[in-house]
């Protein structure tokens, strides 16, 4: 920065006037998550519109879907969010052992969630509940399918991050990447909280 800029307290970059005040990678992830909110709005919004806006026939979700199993699965995903948060806390303290442990736990939690979902899909298909099974089938598979796709991408990314953690890439104060992926992970959990309620319970 020039002497003039320094003398006048002019700063640029992340501390620039009117900047948001967070580091760039985190800001980028939040902007991306904003777009994801709109994406799920289109899908969930369509569900709401088709179910309650058009007077279409709609079965009671609990007669088709397995609430108890999914409730447990929801809890598993929430637990993986906790392990993610613990992983970040460990990274901030430079507790590399803790970071690796909690990241592995998150991977396991996420992978479990996806597996249970896949198992549920298999069960539903066997029962004859397909994407073509009325509007409920169409919306159910689309919403949960894309959510599951997002979780899967999250799990794969988390595996990659875990490998990097084992290679020491987040040691010595370089924990920004953990926070960034953590945001994505919590977002996926948040969407599921909404989905579980709207699709399975209401």
């Amino acid at each position, binding site marked *: 920065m020039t002497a003039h800029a320094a003398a006048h307290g002019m700063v640029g970059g992340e501390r620039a006037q009117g900047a948001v*005040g967070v580091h760039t990678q985190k800001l980028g992830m939040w902007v991306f998550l904003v777009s994801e909110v*709109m994406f799920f709005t289109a899908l969930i919004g369509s569900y709401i519109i088709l179910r309650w806006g058009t007077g279409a026939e709609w079965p009671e979700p609990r007669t088709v879907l397995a609430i108890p199993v999914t409730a447990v699965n929801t809890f598993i995903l929430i637990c993986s969010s906790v392990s993610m948060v613990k992983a970040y806390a460990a990274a*901030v303290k430079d507790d590399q052992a803790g970071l690796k442990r909690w990241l592995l736990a998150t991977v396991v939690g996420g992978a479990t969630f996806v597996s249970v979902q896949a198992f549920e899909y298999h069960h539903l298909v066997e029962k004859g509940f397909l994407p073509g099974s009325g509007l409920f089938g169409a919306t159910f598979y689309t919403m949960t399918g894309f959510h599951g796709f997002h979780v899967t991408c999250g799990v794969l990314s988390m595996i990659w991050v875990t490998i990097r953690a084992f290679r020491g890439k987040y040691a010595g104060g370089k924990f920004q990447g953990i926070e960034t992926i*953590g945001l994505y992970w919590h977002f996926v959990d*948040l969407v599921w909280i909404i989905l579980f309620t709207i699709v399975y319970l209401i």
Partner: protein
Amino acid sequence: METAEHKAPNYIAVWAALAVLTVVEVAVVYLHLPRRLTVVSLVFLALWKAMLVALYFMHLRFEPKRLLYVVLAPLPLAVILVVGVMHGFRGP
């Protein structure tokens, strides 16, 4: 850069709250309350859980206000889209 000086939240407490809220949600379904009460309760519970995740796990409680504005931006639009289209189908 901006790890603002604040006490780390009690993540276990948040986790416990989320677990309890989930149980309550499932219970509400099986209690067979009047329809409207069920729906309102479930929406309220879901939003509460979402808020906990957003504020504590995603750290929004401790972020600069400007970031909050960025994050909140899509929400009115989501509401406008759903309400507007519902209006189109169901009438005034």
